[in-house]
């Protein structure tokens, strides 16, 4: 049970099987976008950030596992990160692009479920992380920034700036917190 102290935890959810969204994103970025020519891999991971009076990591993992509001354990795996120095399921050389729908990051259904199960009021936010790996020697952060924001049909892919924000990250320890940060426009936060 929670001791009442406010905590933050991040839950990273990825498909166990090959992810068709990531496969298509890789194919389109490599084939159609100049910034994606030297892309070697794309991984898509959904991320939930929970903040409030959370119980222990083990209890959070158990709650997430049994809820239908966060992920499906039969086809997805979940990695809970309980602190800034804890690893996330990314490689050190991957450039990360977090995409959130502006003003719609909160997940009321998840928050209601948490309240119902634990009696605690917890904020739940959700976004999508695109982890991008490039050929050696490529400026991964710069290319990821170019791929992040759509400008026209030849430039950008992952976020439409007219309703989405994006935030950069790198390596196995993404920003902490990441979704709860004060909101900025994608271009400003990424450059």
């Amino acid at each position, binding site marked *: 049970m929670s001791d009442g102290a406010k905590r933050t935890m991040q839950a990273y959810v990825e498909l166990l099987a090959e992810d068709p969204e990531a496969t298509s994103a890789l194919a389109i970025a490599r084939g159609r*976008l100049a910034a994606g020519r030297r892309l070697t891999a794309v991984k898509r991971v959904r991320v939930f950030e929970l903040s409030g009076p959370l119980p222990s990591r083990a209890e959070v993992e158990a709650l997430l596992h049994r809820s239908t509001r966060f992920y499906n354990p039969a086809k997805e795996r979940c990695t809970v990160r309980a602190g800034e120095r804890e690893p996330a399921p990314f490689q050190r050389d991957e450039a990360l692009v977090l995409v959130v729908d502006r003003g719609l990051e909160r997940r009321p259904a998840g928050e209601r479920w948490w309240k119902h199960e634990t009696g605690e009021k917890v904020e739940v936010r959700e976004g999508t992380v695109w982890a991008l790996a490039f050929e050696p020697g490529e400026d991964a952060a710069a290319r990821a920034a170019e791929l992040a924001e759509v400008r*026209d049909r030849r430039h950008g892919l992952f976020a439409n700036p007219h309703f989405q924000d994006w935030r950069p990250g790198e390596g196995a320890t993404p920003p902490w917190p990441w979704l709860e940060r004060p909101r900025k426009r994608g271009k400003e936060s990424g450059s």
Partner: protein
Amino acid sequence: MSGARVAVVQFPGVNCEAETVRALECAGLETELFRWTRPPRELAAFDAYVLPGGFSWQDRVRAGALAAKDPMLDELAARAADGAPVLGICNGAQVLVEAGLVPGNGGGELPHVEVALARNRMPERTGYHTRWAWCRVEDSPCVFTRGLEPGTLLPLPVAHGEGRFAAAKKGRVEALAEAGQAPLRYSRPDGAIAEAFPDNPNGSEAAVAALCNPRGNVMALMPHPERAATLGQVGRAIGGSWGERRERAFAAADGSAFADGPGMAFFHGLARHLAGNA
């Protein structure tokens, strides 16, 4: 038939192609389904283009985002620049917006993406939403609403999870509407512009249901006119003159339920435009 040829451009995951072809043929247009496996250059043989609804590429990454990068869009952009009509319905609208063809105000052959079709914003609910919505025809140069008086009300079905016209710059969508680039806006049954859900079914800025380019030959339309192509398809809850016509048609039991429904207006508008250009 007018002699004009229309291509219904199908990407994988599109699922409204058959009824779209049928509606175009009912408007007297020679129509061909053009699948994504064909060379894009073959599009040049057609006079107009319709991108139907569905889920192109399963909505991967974002609705319309992947199809917008397809080489087919380069060809469609070139044909649109020459004045050929291009209509995107629902997912087709999302593709046109993600490709920058709508509203298409800047960037020449490679127009900037100026707006988005964002996730629906609805009270107490999220996700996919379907209902009949009243749409008001606005004064615009759009070829698809040619022949319709501004103020005309059409009941049309909407069915989408991402149908909210939005722009990063506050007031941008409203400015487009004021400039005549919103041929259709959600309204109340009495014709007043919809101010809130459910009349505005997705929270679209300025209650915009469709946007077109300044020239009026490319339109991104969120409602599904092909699902309102006959009187018999008009929803039971729809009142007003369309509801009365529907009731009379069913009462007559003489086949008049297959007469033109409100959605045919756009396909007839296209046929009139193409006939005028012939």
